[in-house]
C-alpha cells in the first residue's frame, strides 16, 4: 500500500507551492485549519442536492490544496466545474468548528484560476455592466420600463423555463401590494418603538439592484430608520459594492469599486452605514480583507467596514415585540366589546439570506425585527438555513444547480403555507419570487423592511417608555 505515511504521522514532506504569488497562495494559511472532519457536508446545498463530495466544501478545499501543491492544474476543467458550482453561500463556515475562511479561499481560488479559465460569457456581460455606473443605470432604467409594461409577467409564464426565469425575476421585483389592515387592526396593531433611545446618524447604502429595482425598499428603509430615532444622511458618489465581482474572482474590479465606496462614505464620517441588502453588507464588512494588500487603502477600508450595519442590526434594539393575540382564531372578549373581531394574523416565514446568516452571522436581529411587525404569525421554515440558489448571478451562470437547490426550498415554503416569504437580500427576493411565481404559488417574497414599513404607514408607532427590556 502506498497510502501515505503510517510511520511518520501526518502528510509526507510538504511540496513547495506550485502557484507562488497567486491569490490562492496568499490565502493558503486558511487551508491549514481544515482537518477534513466532514462536518461541512450536510450544511452545503450543492453536496446535499448533487450528492457528490466533489461538490462539497471539503472536496473543494482538497482541490485548492492540490492546486497549490501542483498536483492539479489551474486549467483542469473538473477543478473549474466544481469551483464554479459553489454557491458561495458560506453555510460551511457556520458549520466549521475549525474556522476555515472558506469564502475568502473560494474567491482567491477563482481569482487564481480565472487567469487560465475565463469566466463564462453571461457572467462577463453582467459583471461588465455592473462595473460601469452609466451603463448600469441605463440597464436598470430599461428594466424598470420593461417591468412597468407587465410584459415580464407574461413572458415568465409563456417562455420555456430557462428563458422565462430572468423575466420572472424581474417581474417579482414589482412592489408588493401589502394587505390593508382594518381600522380596528390599525388601532390594535401598532409598531412599538422604544422611546428615549439616543439618536444615531446613519447613511444608507443605495446599492445597485436595490436602487434600480427595489427603490421602494430603499425608501421604506429610510422611513423605518427615521421612525426609530435615526437621522438618515446621503453619501453621494457611492455605487455597486463589488460583491459580484469578488465572488467571481475578479478581485481587481471589486477593489476599484470598494475604493470608490470607501471614498464616498468617508465624506460622511462617524455615520453608521445602513445596508438593506445582505450580500452587499457582507462585502462592505470585508473591505478590509479585500484591500489588505493595499497599504494606502487598508486602514481606510477597515475604518469604513467597521461602520457597516445590516438594517436589522440598527433596528433590533429599537423595536419591541408586537402585541400578539392569545388565540388568533377566537376573538377576545375585549375585541367583542369593541364590536369588531381582529383579522387572523397573516402567516409569514423567514428565509435568512446566506450572507446575513453565514457570512455576517446575524440571526437574532432579523427575528427581533419580524417579531415587531404586528398582525403576522412567524411560521417555522424547514431548512431555512439552506441557500435558495440565487447566490448573486449564480442562477444565471449555473441554472441547473440553481434549480436543484431552489426546488427543496420551494417545497418547504409550500409546506409552511404562508402568504409572505421574508428575506433581506435582493438576489434572494428575486430567486424566491421567480421560483414561487413559476411554480404557481400564491406566496410572495418580500423584504422585511417593506413589511415593517407597511405597518408603520398604517398607523404611527407607539412609543414605549421602557428604558430597557433586554
Amino acid at each position, binding site marked *: 500500500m502506498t497510502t501515505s505515511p503510517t510511520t511518520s*504521522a501526518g502528510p509526507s514532506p510538504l511540496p513547495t507551492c506550485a502557484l507562488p504569488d497567486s491569490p490562492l497562495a496568499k490565502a493558503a494559511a486558511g487551508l491549514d485549519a481544515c482537518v477534513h472532519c466532514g462536518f461541512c457536508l*450536510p450544511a452545503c446545498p450543492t453536496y446535499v442536492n448533487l450528492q457528490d463530495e466533489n461538490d462539497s466544501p471539503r472536496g473543494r478545499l482538497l482541490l485548492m490544496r*492540490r492546486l497549490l501543491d501542483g498536483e492539479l492544474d489551474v486549467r483542469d476543467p473538473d477543478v473549474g466545474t466544481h469551483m464554479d458550482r459553489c454557491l458561495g453561500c458560506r453555510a460551511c463556515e457556520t458549520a*466549521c468548528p475549525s474556522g476555515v475562511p472558506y469564502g475568502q479561499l473560494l474567491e482567491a481560488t477563482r481569482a487564481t484560476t480565472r487567469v487560465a479559465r475565463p469566466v463564462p460569457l453571461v457572467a462577463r456581460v453582467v459583471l461588465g455592466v455592473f462595473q460601469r455606473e452609466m451603463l448600469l443605470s441605463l440597464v436598470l432604467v430599461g428594466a424598470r420600463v420593461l417591468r412597468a409594461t407587465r410584459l415580464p409577467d407574461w413572458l415568465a409564464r409563456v417562455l420555456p423555463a430557462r428563458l422565462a426565469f430572468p423575466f420572472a425575476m424581474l417581474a417579482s421585483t414589482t412592489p408588493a401590494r401589502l394587505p390593508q389592515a382594518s381600522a380596528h387592526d390599525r388601532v390594535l396593531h401598532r409598531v412599538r418603538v422604544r422611546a428615549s433611545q439616543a439618536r444615531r446618524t446613519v447613511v444608507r447604502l443605495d446599492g445597485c439592484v436595490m436602487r434600480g429595482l427595489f427603490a421602494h425598499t430603499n425608501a421604506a428603509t429610510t422611513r423605518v430608520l427615521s421612525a426609530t430615532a435615526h437621522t438618515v444622511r446621503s453619501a453621494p458618489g457611492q455605487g455597486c459594492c463589488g460583491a459580484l465581482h469578488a465572488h467571481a474572482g475578479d478581485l481587481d474590479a471589486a477593489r476599484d469599486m470598494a475604493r470608490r465606496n470607501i471614498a464616498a462614505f468617508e465624506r460622511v464620517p462617524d455615520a453608521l452605514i445602513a445596508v438593506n441588502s445582505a450580500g452587499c453588507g457582507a462585502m462592505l464588512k470585508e473591505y478590509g480583507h479585500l484591500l489588505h494588500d493595499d497599504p494606502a487603502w487598508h486602514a481606510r477600508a477597515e475604518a469604513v467596514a467597521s461602520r457597516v450595519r445590516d438594517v436589522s442590526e440598527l433596528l433590533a434594539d429599537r423595536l419591541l415585540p408586537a402585541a400578539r393575540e392569545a388565540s388568533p382564531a377566537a376573538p377576545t372578549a375585549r375585541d367583542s366589546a369593541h364590536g369588531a373581531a381582529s383579522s387572523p394574523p397573516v402567516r409569514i416565514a423567514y428565509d435568512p439570506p446566506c450572507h446575513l446568516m453565514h457570512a455576517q452571522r446575524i440571526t437574532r436581529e432579523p427575528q427581533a425585527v419580524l417579531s415587531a411587525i404586528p398582525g403576522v404569525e412567524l411560521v417555522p421554515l424547514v431548512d431555512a438555513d439552506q441557500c435558495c440558489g440565487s447566490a448573486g448571478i449564480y442562477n444565471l451562470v449555473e441554472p441547473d444547480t440553481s434549480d436543484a437547490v431552489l426546488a427543496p426550498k420551494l417545497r418547504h415554503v409550500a409546506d409552511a403555507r404562508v402568504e409572505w416569504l421574508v428575506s433581506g437580500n435582493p438576489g434572494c427576493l428575486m430567486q424566491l419570487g421567480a421560483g414561487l411565481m413559476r411554480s404557481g404559488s400564491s406566496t410572495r417574497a418580500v423584504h422585511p423592511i417593506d413589511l415593517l414599513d407597511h405597518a408603520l404607514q398604517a398607523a404611527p408607532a407607539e412609543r414605549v417608555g421602557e428604558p430597557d427590556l433586554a
Partner: protein
Amino acid sequence: MITAGLADALRSIVGPRWVKQRPAELTAYDSDALPGYRATPSFVVLPASRDEVIAVVRLLAQHGVPFVPRGAGTGLSGGALANDAVIIGLNRLTRIHAIDAGNRIAHVEPGVVNAVLQREVAPFGLQYAPDPSSQSACTIGGNVAENAGGPHCLKYGVTLNHVAAVTVCLPNGELVQFGDPASERDGYDLCGLFIGSEGCFGIATDVWVRLLPVAPAVRTLLADFPSLTDAARAVSAIIATGIVPAALEMMDQATIRAVEASIYAAGYPTDVAAVLLAEVDGLEAGLDADARTIERCCREAGARDVRIARTDGDRARLWQGRKKAFGALGRIAPHLVVQDAVVPRTRLPDVLETIAAIGARHGVAVCNVFHAGDGNIHPNISYDASDHAQAERVHAAMSEIMQACIDAGGTITGEHGVGLDKLGYMDALFTEPSLAAMCAVREVFDPDRRANPGKVVPVHACREWGGRR
C-alpha cells in the same frame, strides 16, 4: 482486473454522471476524516438504489476488482480509504423507508445521516440512541460498519445494541438478511457479527434500527477541575455510586480553548485544567438526587465549580461544543493525530498522567477530549508536519501512548474502528491464533478478500499477500 470496459459497464448501471475516474474528481474521495492519510481509488461509483449497489458489486466480482464502501467519509481510522480499489459511495441511498413508532423500529437506507434520522423520529417522541460526535454528517451505514458509539452510549449502548437487522450485499453480489426486524432470531447472531465489520463482510443496503422513547427528563452538569487527575477521580467516584449517567465526558484545557475560539463556543471555562460534562436522564423523580450526588462526587474530587444547564438551549450548546471539539482542534496547528483507546475506568487517573508524561518527554502537546465514563480516551496531538523532527516526535509519542493504554489492560479502539490507522497495533493486542480466527471469519463472507482489502486485520495474519506493510 480494472479495464476500460469496466468503467463503461459501471456507467451503464449508475449513469455516466455517477462514475468518477479523472484525477480531480477522485480528489475528494482520496481521504476521509483521518488526518494525514491519502489513497487514490481506481474509480468512485455512486449508486442510487439497492439494485444498483447489487449490480455494481456483481460486476466488480466478475472482474475480480476490490471495493471499499464509503458513507460520508467522516471515519477516523482510514476505513474508507481505497488504494487500487473502487469506492462505492452509499451517500445517495438516503430513503427512510418506514418509521414504525408502535414497534419502535425504523427501516432506513445506509446513506441516511444519523442526525436526519434523529430529526425524523423526534416527532414521535423517539430517538435513535447512538450519537457519535460526527452525527450531523455521518451515515447510518457507516455507523453500522464501525459499530459507532457516542457520548450517550455509556448508558444506552453502541450501534450493536440498536440494530435489529441488516440486509447485506455480500462481496459476490448475493443479497442476505441478518437478524430480524420483528423478533429475535435463533441461531448465530450474524447481525451482531456484521456490525463493526468495517466494510470487510459486504455492504449493508437496508438497516432496521431500534428506536427509544426520548427520556422525559434530563439534567446536564458541567464541572471544572484544577487537574485532569482530579476529573478522572471524579469519574470513578460517580460510577462507583451506582448511578449510570447517560453521558460522562471530559475535555482538557487545550481542547476547551479550541472549542471556545470556534463558532460552537459553549461557555466552558477556559482557565481550568479540565471539565467534566455529565448527564443523567430518565423519570423526573430522583433525577435531582442523582444530579446532587454527581455534584458531590465532583466537589469531593476537587471540582472548583459545578453548574447545571438551565435551559434546553444551554444544554444543546454544551453538547454542540463537546461534539464539534475534534474539528475545532484544527485551530491549534495544521496537522493532527487522533487516537481512540479504551482503558479500564479506574486506571484513567494514572493513564492520563502517563500520557501527559509521554507528551512532555517528547515535547508534544496532547489534547484530551473523550468519553470518560466508558474509559474511551481520545488523546490527540496537533502539530506542524512541515517540521519533520516534530512529526517524528509526535509519532513516537503516539506509539508509546497506545502501548501504555494496552499495558493498562486497555484496547486500541473504542469506536473509530481499526481501519488502516490501527492495523499496526493489532499484533500487540491479539495473538496469532486470534488473528487467524478473524481471518477465518472473514473468509466466510469474502473468500476473495475484495471487500475493503488491507483493513482491520494485518495481512500477514491472513497469510495473504505476505509480509507486513
